[in-house]
């Protein structure tokens, strides 16, 4: 039987409606059954369609499903339609799979929260929006999902809205995303203006004839789309909302702000690869912004004390990595890293959630330590994720990260500088991640006595998701073993039809360029260099944070100025505050206190006051004494008669 594609996002929508409409009336068990069940069904259907897809011949792996016409308006014609090709299939599996695991985890994590039903309703709405985003077959429907995930992100960051910092963080995330969305929309306008359609297939088929390759319009359109991506995926200059987004519940941070939503920008650029390939300037901008963000966020992560903030900056840094991959036209490598990152970063967040849970809400790593024995499942899974993100050979992160490093060096759009900075970032990543592990799990416990007694491993409903993600974080990379290590990079080959072949006219050529020039020995050498350096940096973290903790303090004192800047996150928030927020606040204050109160209100009230004053002045004339009236009357008559006589 042919099943329609729209079933995939339909289930979470149904779950959202059920949980949302019956909020506060259902038992917790039923709420979680609806929420997890709907996402689980989505995942099962995702797998089914994935199997359908790979059973098709390689060059025609597309499943389309037009549900109905959404906007028929003259030339502007948009369908509610879904498109499953290798790229969206990967995304659907990652999104639905990781969401399902995190839904299960949330049952344990949110168990005592009074907003239980609301939480799962939002979470289902998020999964629905995200699936719309990745399954859409045109830019406008993608934008609907794009906005939907932004809304859910706002709702879930501000989930504990009684807390002012959480409510503020939600607003901050929303506003920064709006700035990006504005760029995204403008980009869509240019595309529609030139091509007359927003359907992916039509756009990618017509783009080479409608746009001048490397011309101003295509560059502007792709750069504007990238502005949207910087907002959603937290890149310079719009990244500052993501660390604050950690105010939300930890599973939300894992799902939305690590694994899925923030990768939407990478997905969008990979999806638009045909357009980006036509605009080398935009590619360069993407690569430079990506690498700058990766390095900047990695350095900030070195000095943060809040466990979730370290992970947040790490996410920003890894997203920067994915953009580097997109920027050197290695879109498949970007998506590959997106997938492995979704596994190990979700695992890191869920592990940190488990730690925070055990320590009764403590998030400051200065008050952790020695949790290794107390948490026999959280610790090893967390360690696996850390090894994966650091890029230790054999784990998923190694394959995807090394793919990006290699492409940033060897690609036609790459350079040795890009590679060097990316490698430095990888080393820093290893350093701060192991700093986190050593501070949290090793050494002496630095928590107070009451917390120490309370310390416990999380319930099964939380540890089983951790275990599943740990397995994925290990094996996730084996779908994309590079040729040089004896694999055949099946992941890249799987994405091949979307990336170059089908839509791109000179696909063969571009592909040949992307992997030209350097031999296998160079690749092996670079790989060895990065692995050695990463291990050295892990040792350094061990040295500073476990073996010789005084040295870390000494180092900090010696470079206290640098430490202050990094600890203060380069004062970017303050800079934005001074450059944007304060002028707006001052301008608004001027308009309110001066323009509105003085000028507008003054005008209205002034008129009323003048009339009132004149009336008060005239009031004594009405004395109420009859004789006065009679006298005035007489005088009036005399004057009139006198006037008539004289005239």
């Amino acid at each position, binding site marked *: 039987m042919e099943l329609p594609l729209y079933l995939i996002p339909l289930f979470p929508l149904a779950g959202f409606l059920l949980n949302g409409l019956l909020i506060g009336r259902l038992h917790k068990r039923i709420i979680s059954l609806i929420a997890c069940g709907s996402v689980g069904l989505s995942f099962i259907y995702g797998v089914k369609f994935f199997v359908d897809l790979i059973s098709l011949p390689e060059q025609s792996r597309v499943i389309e499903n037009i549900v109905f016409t959404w906007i028929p308006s003259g030339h502007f014609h948009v369908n509610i339609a879904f498109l499953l090709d290798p790229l969206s299939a990967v995304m659907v599996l990652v999104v639905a799979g990781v969401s399902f695991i995190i839904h299960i985890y949330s049952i344990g994590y949110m168990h005592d929260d009074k907003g239980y039903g609301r939480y799962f309703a939002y979470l289902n709405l998020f999964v629905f929006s995200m699936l719309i985003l990745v399954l859409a077959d045109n830019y406008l429907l993608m934008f609907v999902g794009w906005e939907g995930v932004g809304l859910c992100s706002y709702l879930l960051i501000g989930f504990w809205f009684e807390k002012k910092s959480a409510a503020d963080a939600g607003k901050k995330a929303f506003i920064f995303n709006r700035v990006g969305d504005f760029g995204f929309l403008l980009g869509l306008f240019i595309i529609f203006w030139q091509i007359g359609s927003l359907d992916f297939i039509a756009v990618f088929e017509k783009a080479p004839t409608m746009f001048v390759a490397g011309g101003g319009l295509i560059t502007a359109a792709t750069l504007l789309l990238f502005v949207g991506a910087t907002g959603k995926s937290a890149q310079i200059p719009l990244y500052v909302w993501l660390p604050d987004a950690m105010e939300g519940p930890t599973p939300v941070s894992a799902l939305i702000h690590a694994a899925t939503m923030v990768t939407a920008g990478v997905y969008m650029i990979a999806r638009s690869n045909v357009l980006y390939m036509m605009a080398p300037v935009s590619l360069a901008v993407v690569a430079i912004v990506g690498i700058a963000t990766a390095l900047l966020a990695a350095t900030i992560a070195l000095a943060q004390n809040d466990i979730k903030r370290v992970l947040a900056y790490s996410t920003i840094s890894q997203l920067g990595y994915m953009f580097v991959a997109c920027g050197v036209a290695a879109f498949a490598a970007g998506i590959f890293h997106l997938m492995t990152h979704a596994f190990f970063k979700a695992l890191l967040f869920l592990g940190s959630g488990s730690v925070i849970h055990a320590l009764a809400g403590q998030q400051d790593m200065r008050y952790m330590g020695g949790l290794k024995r107390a948490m026999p499942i959280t610790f090893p899974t967390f360690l696996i994720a850390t090894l994966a993100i650091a890029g230790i050979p054999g784990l998923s992160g190694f394959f995807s990260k090394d793919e990006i490093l290699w492409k940033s060096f060897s690609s036609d759009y790459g350079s040795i500088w890009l590679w060097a900075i990316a490698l430095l970032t990888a080393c820093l990543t290893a350093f701060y991640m192991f700093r986190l592990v050593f501070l949290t799990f090793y050494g002496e416990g630095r928590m107070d006595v009451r917390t120490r007694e309370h310390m416990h491993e999380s319930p099964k409903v939380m540890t089983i998701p951790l275990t599943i993600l740990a397995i994925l974080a290990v094996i996730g990379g084996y779908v994309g073993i590079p040729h040089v290590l004896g694999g055949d990079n099946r992941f890249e080959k799987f994405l091949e039809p979307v990336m170059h072949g089908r839509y791109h006219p000179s696909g063969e050529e571009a592909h040949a360029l992307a992997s030209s020039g350097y031999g296998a020995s160079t690749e092996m050498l670079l790989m060895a260099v990065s692995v050695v350096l990463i291990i050295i940096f892990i040792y350094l973290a061990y040295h500073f944070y476990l073996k010789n903790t005084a040295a870390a303090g000494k180092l900090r004192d010696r470079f206290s100025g640098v430490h202050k800047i990094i600890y203060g996150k380069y004062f970017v928030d303050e800079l934005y505050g001074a450059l944007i927020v304060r002028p707006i606040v001052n301008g608004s204050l001027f308009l309110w206190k001066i323009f509105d109160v003085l000028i507008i209100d003054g005008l209205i009230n002034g008129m009323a006051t003048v009339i009132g004053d004149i009336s008060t002045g005239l009031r004594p004339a*009405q004395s109420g004494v*009859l*004789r006065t009236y009679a006298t005035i009357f007489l005088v009036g008559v005399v004057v009139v008669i006198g006037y008539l006589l004289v005239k």
Partner: protein
Amino acid sequence: MVPIPHFLILSALLFATGTAGVIISRNLIIMFMSIELMLNAGNLAIIAFSRMNNVVDGHVFVFLILTVAAAEAAVGLAIIIMIFRNKESINADKFSLLKR
């Protein structure tokens, strides 16, 4: 026959007396009667002119005025009585409620 100017002079004197009465007096009844006086001074002038021109229009007119004046006197006196009942006074200066 009395010459016309005499009537007119008498009429003017009566009118002036009435005006002075309205302006000077505080007693509502006196004010009211002074107004009647002014009215009748006017009537006298009309009749005088009518006679001067040898027509009867003025006489007819004066009859009408007298009729209306009678009705007006009835209403006016009734108002004064009501005011007195309510305020126990007919001093015009005390009735200035519309003033602030």
